[in-house]
């Protein structure tokens, strides 16, 4: 357990010392919705209708951008071997890597998300549900994305491959998260959607560590 916490602390420290990486992803998270506004037009009603979808799709892509280096950076400098050879279970260490990725990428995104939602005219009553859906959904993005990141370690054309692997797996998160916020806008109960979102998180938590560990062992043979 200590090894896992040490790994999270190290990754957070690394992210704080090179804030440019997190800031770049945050900038993407703010800029990309702007393009949607240009592409769709500035009518508030139209934007309000698509706001949740855009926030969630862009958050998902931003998450994907940060996953590219999650394990590849470890493999490139030889750290991956040390993680694989640590006495602690690799499943736990892979989970710690995802936790650190969530802390350093998803949390800043969640903090900034109301700003983006405002730009897109999200109805007031939906903000609470948007934040809850992000809090419940982004860990699944980190874990599922972690599988893709672990599978594509050492692959040619890692980035595009990662997107190809991970994006289909992100479909359920996107559906339930957006459904929850849209239910909030429509004044319908949001709980069923949020429960399903949480359920996806539990499923990812049970599958992802083993898939990641298996992939990382393969990558460091």
């Amino acid at each position, binding site marked *: 357990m*200590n090894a896992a916490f040490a790994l999270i602390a*190290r990754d957070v420290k690394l992210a704080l010392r*090179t804030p440019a990486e997190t800031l770049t992803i945050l900038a993407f998270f703010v800029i990309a919705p702007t393009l949607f506004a240009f592409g769709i037009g500035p009518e508030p009603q139209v934007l309000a209708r698509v706001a949740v979808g855009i926030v969630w799709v862009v958050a998902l892509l931003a998450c994907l951008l940060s996953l590219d280096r999650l394990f590849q950076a470890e493999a490139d400098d*030889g*750290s991956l071997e040390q993680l694989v050879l*640590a*006495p*602690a279970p690799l499943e736990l260490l892979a989970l710690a890597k995802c936790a650190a990725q969530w802390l350093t990428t998803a949390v800043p995104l969640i903090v900034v998300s109301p700003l983006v939602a405002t730009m897109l005219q999200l109805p007031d009553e939906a903000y609470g549900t948007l934040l809850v859906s992000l809090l419940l959904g982004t860990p699944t993005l980190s874990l599922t994305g972690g599988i893709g990141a672990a599978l594509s370690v050492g692959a040619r054309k890692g980035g595009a491959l990662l997107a190809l692997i991970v994006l289909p797996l992100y479909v359920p998160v996107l559906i339930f998260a957006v459904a929850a916020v849209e239910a909030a806008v429509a004044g319908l109960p949001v709980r069923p959607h949020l429960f399903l979102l949480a359920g996806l998180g539990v499923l990812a938590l049970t599958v992802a560590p083993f898939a990641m560990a298996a992939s990382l062992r393969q990558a460091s*043979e």
Partner: protein
Amino acid sequence: MNTDSPAGLDGRALACRRGGRAVFRGLDLRAAPGELIVLRGPNGSGKSSLLRVLAGLLAPAGGTLAWDGEDVAEDPARHRARLHFVGHDDALKPTLTLREHIAFHAALRGAGTSDPAAALDAFGLAALANMPARVLSQGQRRRAALARLLAAPAPLWLLDEPTNGLDAAAADGLARAVAKHRAGGGIVVAATHLDFPGADARTLTLGAAR
């Protein structure tokens, strides 16, 4: 415990295949406590592969590997806990200081307490303890990677080209660390194409017997 299996590392009839090709096969390797084994051989003869098999990173295509008479495949976590592996790459993060690297490694290896200063001092890095890894020279980086060996105790050291980029003084530091480790009953297996500093090393040459 099996009576005919000696204490320490005992590899029998080890085989390794990579990319459909046999790298080595029928390889026996024994190392009793206190022994230093130097792996030699031309490029591609399988020195690195053998080290990875010994570390458990790579499953052998044949043969068995035992520690104190117990097959390491039965409890891989215990095997990982008893070894240090220094690979080709130094595994340094540009923005972390050397002290942080050593402390992290100790925590990763589950060492309760660690003394980063002593580990760094043994490789002449005490003055650089608070420097981030990105400012270091290649030799200093290598020494930092080796200083990890002292971050947490482990009886088996597996070193892949440890002397790459080291000057004479640094190589002496490594020799002292290895000698001390062996005096305490530790085992060292090192792959190198340079001279390895150490007394009464046993040499295993790969790639010649095929």
